[in-house]
């Protein structure tokens, strides 16, 4: 064995990008190695699509008209992607608690690559989940009506939102270090986020004081925007009192980019402070 200088050279930025790529590859390799996790990511939303389509579908008349199935499938998309962020946090907390994070910290790598790699791998997971859900949706009768470009824009928006949620999960995972706590902390904010929205019921059916909360909820923006882009029924969403409901696509993009802009530095901060422990 020889101790030779085998290290790559380059500017800090290029090397950091390389580290991010390596960490992303690691995250993707893991994805296939934990099949039960991926299966769980899929089973729950598929179950939701089937339940809402066949059990509730006939009983709930959709305000504003249109097929209930088309209405509900998009909500399940957004919900599933938001809930995936919880698993992201738990997975990272497992890494942290097992001392693997010390390995990364003792390396000359750019530390930003640890959260970036994780979030990027989660984006791939989101792509797989969205793909499978779209197929199940098609099977139960969901359709996108506004042409290829608009449909792709709708999926792009969902994935952007998933990426934002992944960063929230990464931040939680790096902040708490304990997998169980990370799971609880994740659910604690994703549950209200998911349900105080117009995903399954129109905002006008909620109590007066809750309506602004629901209207300004990022999930509401994403669901409404995606429904708009797919040409699915909106269920009385176009409420002119609230700006996000009047401009759902802009609201969804701003929300997602805003969350990413806030949570990337927060995740880095969490990684740094975890180091000095």
């Amino acid at each position: 064995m020889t101790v030779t200088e085998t290290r790559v050279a380059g500017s800090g930025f290029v090397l950091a990008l390389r580290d991010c790529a390596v960490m992303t590859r690691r995250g993707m390799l893991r994805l296939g190695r934990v099949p039960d996790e991926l299966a769980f990511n899929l089973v729950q939303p598929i179950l939701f699509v089937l339940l809402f389509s066949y059990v509730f579908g006939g009983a709930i008349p959709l305000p504003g008209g249109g097929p209930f199935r088309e209405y509900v499938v998009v909500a399940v998309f957004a919900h599933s992607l938001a809930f995936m962020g919880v698993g992201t946090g738990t997975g990272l907390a497992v890494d942290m608690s097992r001392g693997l994070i010390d390995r990364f910290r003792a390396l000359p790598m750019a530390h930003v690559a640890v959260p970036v790699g994780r979030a990027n791998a989660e984006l791939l997971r989101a792509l797989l989940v969205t793909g499978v859900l779209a197929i199940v949706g098609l099977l139960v009768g969901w359709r996108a009506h506004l042409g290829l470009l608009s449909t792709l824009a709708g999926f792009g928006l969902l994935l952007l939102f998933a990426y934002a949620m992944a960063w929230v999960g990464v931040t939680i995972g790096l902040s708490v270090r304990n997998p169980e706590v990370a799971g609880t902390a994740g659910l604690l904010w994703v549950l209200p986020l998911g349900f105080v929205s117009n995903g399954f019921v129109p905002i006008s059916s909620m109590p007066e004081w809750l309506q602004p909360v629901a209207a300004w909820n990022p999930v509401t923006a994403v669901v409404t925007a995606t429904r708009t882009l797919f040409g699915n029924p909106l269920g009385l969403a176009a409420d002119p009192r609230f700006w996000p409901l009047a401009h759902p696509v802009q609201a969804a993009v701003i929300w997602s980019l805003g969350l990413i802009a806030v949570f990337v530095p927060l995740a880095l901060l969490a990684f740094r402070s975890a180091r000095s422990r």
Partner: protein
Amino acid sequence: MNLGVTNSSPGLHRERETHGGIQVEGLTKRYGGVHALDGLDLNAPEGQVLGLLGPNGAGKSTLVRILATLLKPDSGRASVCGFDVIRDPQAVRRSVGVAGQYAAVDEYLTARENLNIFGQLARMGKRAARSRAEELIERFDLGHAADRPARTYSGGMRRRLDLAVALIAGPRCLFLDEPTTGLDPRARVEVWAVLGDLVRQGTTALVTTQYLEEADQFADLITVIDHGREIATGKPAELKDRVGGDHLDLAVRRAADLPAAVSALAAAGLPDPKPDPGTLCVTAVLPGGTSRMAEVLRKLDGAGVEVADITVRRPTLDDVFFALTGKADDR
């Protein structure tokens, strides 16, 4: 924060920084009321293996974590391969390999993937990482399992992979925290052989271990610490001499010979021989080891003592460990 700044002159500082190896001066680290490190000094010369011994809780792992830039000390300074761990952690990380007390590998990745990925993160080129990974897989006998996720490994296999990961980038300084714990004898020998190869090429290694015969056999220098302080440093043989060197056990045939045997041993330069009339034995410390044996035999012969049995017993590092760390409690 006033970390790592000592009163030494800048000139001395610069001179030290061009020096390889590992130097630690007055390092302290507190956890609440516990002084994990309490003014620790040690020095591992470049290209040598420093064995770090100490009872549980002595501060060994804390030191390794500080040297690996994972933990900041409260005060004192430490330099690794010529770089200050506080002022230049990034340079330290580029020069070192670390294996902590508990194996830290990616459970979901195979040995091959772990090695390749950690090699690339240590900024090795892709091809260099790959060929080095194959070399280490071979060396640490992981070939049969190299394509299985590490979570299917036995404890010892995981440990071996962890060590291989620490070695992947050919580090100039190595910190290994109990590297052979949990390994079978063959794997332990292999770990020390790999370490020996690296050290011959100039790598400096700081290795903690609870196996004292191993330290005896493989370390160039041993530092014993307790309660976060250095209590003894030296070559294994020097430390043994410090607890009295080799011991001589002499058995005679007749009780009447005992006084003559005692004076013969004293005449041969053995301090304070102790006769035991019950077993017809005399025990004494043998300064200078076996080189004094010829003299001992000549004197015994000259005094006409009839010898039944004579044995030289080397003190073990266990004797050293007990003698030194036992005393440390008086502080």
